């Protein structure tokens, strides 16, 4: 079942198309990533999806509602790229100040969120004294106070060390199960998208590809088999005879395969001649590089 749909969603600022005609369809219960470099237009897209900004053209609908509908914001929770909570106030005050801004807040539910998501121990600490990971967790809980159906997160892991990043990710995934959430997030870390059900790859305001991680890899990356052969086997001659494309690097022959089956067959056929092999699956790095060209340093 589709929970969110956009049609030709476009944002023009100062005559420039910051977001350019994007179409999305998100199924209920999915974890969807918007992947793109800084400046690709991810935050602007998220602001339109959440109704914080209106689009210049095109539409976004959540369960048939447009952002002008009064109930739209009740369906969504938003975690902003930079935290919007008050550093000088305690976690508890921060959460309760926001909770009181909703008309029909379920106090028991707020308490249960705090308990289930393990916030009691830091409840009375000032927000500014928390670690980066803890802050993110509080930000996320703020976004869940009113039981939204879709959770939006703008770069939830940016600025965190690797350990906290992993923790936040497993936290986000656990939320999805526990509260039956649909999650839409943005990231510029390629490896993080591996955990999502569906990925939209964004570049200069456009979606340049979108699919499941698996399908993206099939379409835009290759699996690589790195081989060494027995000394008396003339590999080069063999590849030429059989019209196989290969590369030779660091004393290894590299051959690419579209799927695992083909690689297994190749190894089986050649088992008497192969001395050693390594097999590497394509990564989202390859996918991204293939799509955008060697545009920028992918990792910070």
């Amino acid at each position: 079942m589709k929970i969110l749909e956009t049609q030709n969603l476009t944002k023009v600022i100062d005559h420039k198309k910051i977001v350019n005609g994007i179409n999305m369809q998100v199924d209920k219960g999915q974890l969807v990533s918007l992947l793109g470099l800084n400046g690709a237009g991810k935050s602007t897209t998220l602001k339109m999806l959440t109704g914080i900004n209106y689009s210049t053209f095109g539409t976004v609908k959540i369960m048939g509602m447009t952002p002008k509908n009064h109930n739209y914001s009740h369906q969504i929770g938003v975690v902003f790229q930079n935290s919007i909570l008050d550093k000088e106030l305690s976690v508890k005050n921060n959460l309760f100040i926001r909770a009181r801004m909703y008309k029909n807040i379920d106090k028991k539910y707020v308490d249960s969120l705090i308990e289930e998501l393990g916030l009691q121990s830091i409840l009375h600490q000032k927000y500014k004294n928390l670690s980066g990971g803890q802050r993110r967790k509080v930000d996320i809980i703020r976004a869940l106070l009113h039981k939204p159906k879709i959770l939006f997160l703008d770069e939830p892991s940016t600025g965190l060390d690797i350990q906290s990043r992993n923790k936040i990710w497993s936290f986000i995934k656990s939320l999805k199960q526990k509260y039956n959430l649909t999650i839409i997030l943005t990231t510029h870390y390629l490896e993080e998208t591996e955990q999502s059900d569906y990925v939209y790859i964004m570049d200069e305001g456009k979606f340049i590809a979108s699919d499941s991680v698996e399908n993206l890899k099939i379409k835009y990356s290759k699996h690589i088999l790195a081989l060494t052969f027995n000394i008396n086997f003339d590999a080069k001659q063999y590849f030429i005879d059989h019209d196989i494309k290969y590369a030779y690097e660091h004393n290894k022959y590299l051959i690419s395969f579209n799927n695992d089956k083909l690689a297994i067959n190749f190894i089986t056929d050649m088992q008497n001649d192969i001395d050693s092999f390594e097999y590497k699956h394509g990564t989202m790095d390859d996918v991204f590089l293939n799509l955008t060209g060697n545009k920028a340093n992918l990792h910070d």
Partner: protein
Amino acid sequence: MINLVKRNLILYFNNKANVFFSLLASLISFGLFILFIKNNLQNQWHATAIYPGLLDNWIIGGTLTTTAISSALTALTRYVIDKSNNVIADISLTDLSFKTLQISYIVSAVIVSTIMQLFTFAFMSTYFSLVDKIDFQWNVILMVILMAILASFVWTAFGFIITSLINNQDALSGCYSIINTLAGFFALVYFPLMTLPKLGQLVIKLTPAPYMSAMYRNILMQNDLKNAFRNSTAHSMNVFKNQININIGNVNSLNSQILVLLTFILIFTFIFLIVSLKTRKNLIH
């Protein structure tokens, strides 16, 4: 609403820099007065040499105006900070209406500005009662509280126009520096109106500042004036009042000064409404 007001107040008073900058303009005028201006004015106005309470309360009146200006504006910085940090965007996702949100920021600023004025009043009155042995005027306190609230509304209404138009903190603090620098002159803290050229007088008279100082001086100096002009004609007292700007042109009674300030609130509110029609649409970006 109370919720958001409380949060704004806690954030304001938690931040020492806020409190300091709210009082900075007043501290400067107070310091300048004691160091340089007091003697000078005493030589000009002989009555003030005999009745030190006249001059002391005159400076308190002017200083309260500058405090009202800088504290209301400083309190409203929160609104701009919250706009630029997406806090307003976040609140817009809740059930709190945009109007209630704006009113909350206005009420917070009025409360802050009133408290800072009363603090300044208590501080300066205590200082002068110790140094110049003048009486602490308990009998005017209620009036001062009411006028402080009125003054807070005037400058909050003014400040809200500015903070609605400006979305980033740097631009705002630039704007504030200018206003704070001018505040002392416009509030007629350092010298009276008639020492200025005609154009300068006109510009100052087009702002609420001189009327507010006059209002405060009217209230604070009434006891000492009665004493000082006990044996003189009403005319000579009026001449003195003109000299020291308890009268601003024809606006020469407490009631007319209050009326002028209420009119300024209306004008500022009207301007704000026009401005907000234009900015409302793209406020939450």
